[in-house]
């Protein structure tokens, strides 16, 4: 009997050559293209291609050295760091409190209203939100300044015109767009039976709400937090659309980011090797950022 079971189990896993081809063929084809283009980009970053015409002659680290000396690259690093910190930490923190608030809210009937309200931006593109927020931020007769003047206030915010603060206003658009998404991820990790029972028990013992949040909830939603933070990190690292549509890197290059630099360097200045180098840098950083998450997902997938 035991022998028979074993045989059956291996049957469901073992496939004929023909079956393998049907199930895996498309994936292997697309993965080959994906990794082929990835390798191709890495190769290009070590060549000497800096005009319209392709040049695959190897030039070592020439274009990486070019990037390191480029002031624009330094501005990108600082701006991307601002995006990473201010796009991730405030979003995750507010999302935790908001998700907890929705659990505790004295108006449980408003829960689905609130969720829909803050979640709808995930259906919109950054191009659309960027367009709307450009209008909100427009300094002369844009929405926010007009509203402030209507309330009898000064309403003279420069928003995206001031090179020192423009990036912060851009990050605010990102936070606005991703908050609802962050909340539902946190909410879904709240809702395990074990956690609900622990909260129940702590409430009976008379623990305060904030204490419950920090001592019981946070340590028990580590997986949800890992997922959320990884996703936000990647999204802020790759940020391109918002900057492209609102400021296109300006004023000057004050709001430039790595992805925008990559695009302009490659497709406008035709310094293709340097552009490929920027692509490789973005890839390597994102690769490192998702390692903890990938390990988690791999364990979950194969051990469950």
């Amino acid at each position, binding site marked *: 009997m035991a022998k028979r079971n074993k045989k059956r189990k291996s049957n469901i896993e073992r496939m004929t050559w023909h079956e393998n081809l049907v199930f*895996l063929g498309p994936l292997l084809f697309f993965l080959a293209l994906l990794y082929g283009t990835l390798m191709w980009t890495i190769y290009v970053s070590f060549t000497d291609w800096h005009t319209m015409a392709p040049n695959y002659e190897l030039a070592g680290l020439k274009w990486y050295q070019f990037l390191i000396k480029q002031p624009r690259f330094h501005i990108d690093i600082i701006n991307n760091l601002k995006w990473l910190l201010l796009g991730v930490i405030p979003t995750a923190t507010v999302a935790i409190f908001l998700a907890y608030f929705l659990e505790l809210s004295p108006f449980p009937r408003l829960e689905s209203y609130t969720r829909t309200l803050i979640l709808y931006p995930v259906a*919109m593109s950054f191009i659309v939100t960027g367009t709307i927020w450009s209008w909100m931020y427009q300094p002369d007769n844009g929405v926010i300044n007009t509203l402030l003047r209507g309330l009898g206030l000064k309403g003279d915010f420069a928003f995206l015109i001031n090179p020192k603060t423009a990036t912060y206003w851009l990050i605010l658009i990102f936070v606005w767009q991703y908050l609802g998404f962050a909340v539902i991820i946190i909410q879904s990790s709240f809702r395990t039976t074990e956690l609900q029972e622990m909260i129940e028990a702590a409430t009976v013992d008379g623990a305060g709400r904030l204490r419950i949040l920090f001592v019981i909830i946070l340590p028990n939603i580590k997986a949800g937090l890992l997922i959320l933070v990884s996703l936000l990190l990647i999204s802020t690292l790759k940020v391109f659309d918002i900057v*492209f549509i609102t400021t296109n890197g300006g004023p000057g290059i004050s709001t430039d980011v790595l992805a925008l630099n990559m695009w302009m360097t490659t497709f406008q200045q035709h310094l293709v090797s340097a552009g490929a180098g920027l692509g490789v840098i973005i890839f390597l950083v994102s690769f490192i950022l998702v390692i903890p998450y990938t390990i988690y997902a791999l364990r979950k997938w194969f051990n469950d």
Partner: protein
Amino acid sequence: MTSKSLGAKILAISILLGLTIIYLLPIYVMVATSLKTPEEISQGQYLLPTGTPQWSNYTEVLFGSTRFRSEMITRLKNSIVISFSVTALAAFFGGLSGYYLSRNKSIFSRSLFVLVGIGLYLPYQVVIIPLSILMSKTGLNQSYAGLIMSYLILNMPLATVLLGTFFLGIPKELEEAALVDGASKIQIFFRIVVPISLPAYASVAIIVFTQVWNEFFLALTLSSRNTQTVQVIMAEAKGTTLVLYNLQMAAALIAVSIPLFFFFFLSRYFVRGILAGALKGG
């Protein structure tokens, strides 16, 4: 465990009110501005629902005019063709490979999973140069096929992992019984697994569709005059010409109409899709 005290209620009401303003204002502004004249806008009169609604702004944006040269209707068609094609193909192929990865735990399968996992978060910047070379060499950049192909390459990992995650949760007994009855794996997949996984397919379809519809970087770089998507034309309208804000807002509303429709009317699948998308493998 809800709070009933007065203080808690006041706090709750102010949070809800604040969120309502912050999240409804941009939508309200988009709709209100899209129905105004340029004069009303320059005089700061666009926030109140006064004046005659300028429905003609929408026909201008859709069919083109001297104030809005890039008519949206052809770009809507392009976006629809591209997004629906990618969605259908990614769901079909992703289902096949997701099933393989969920039923096979060999070293080979594990390594494939790692490759797929890295592909999930691959920044488009690291594949765009070869893709644009390939597209222009093969002439595919002039047709939908090029963009569809590129999006498929980048969305296969997502569809594979999402559907695979769902298949992991299906008990294997049914499949084992069918196997004993002499069905082939392909028959088992299409006759048993797919029919009970239709809700998962719906969620995956919605998330892939929304992603492709909203994608900009690849579309900007790889699309030609004939294949431009709505996102690209919006960026063009905003960047190159002095398009008026009322027309920009009308264009924005047209561009978000389809994904927002899915969000409001298929919200269950939508939320499940983005949650699954976030909790991939978990």
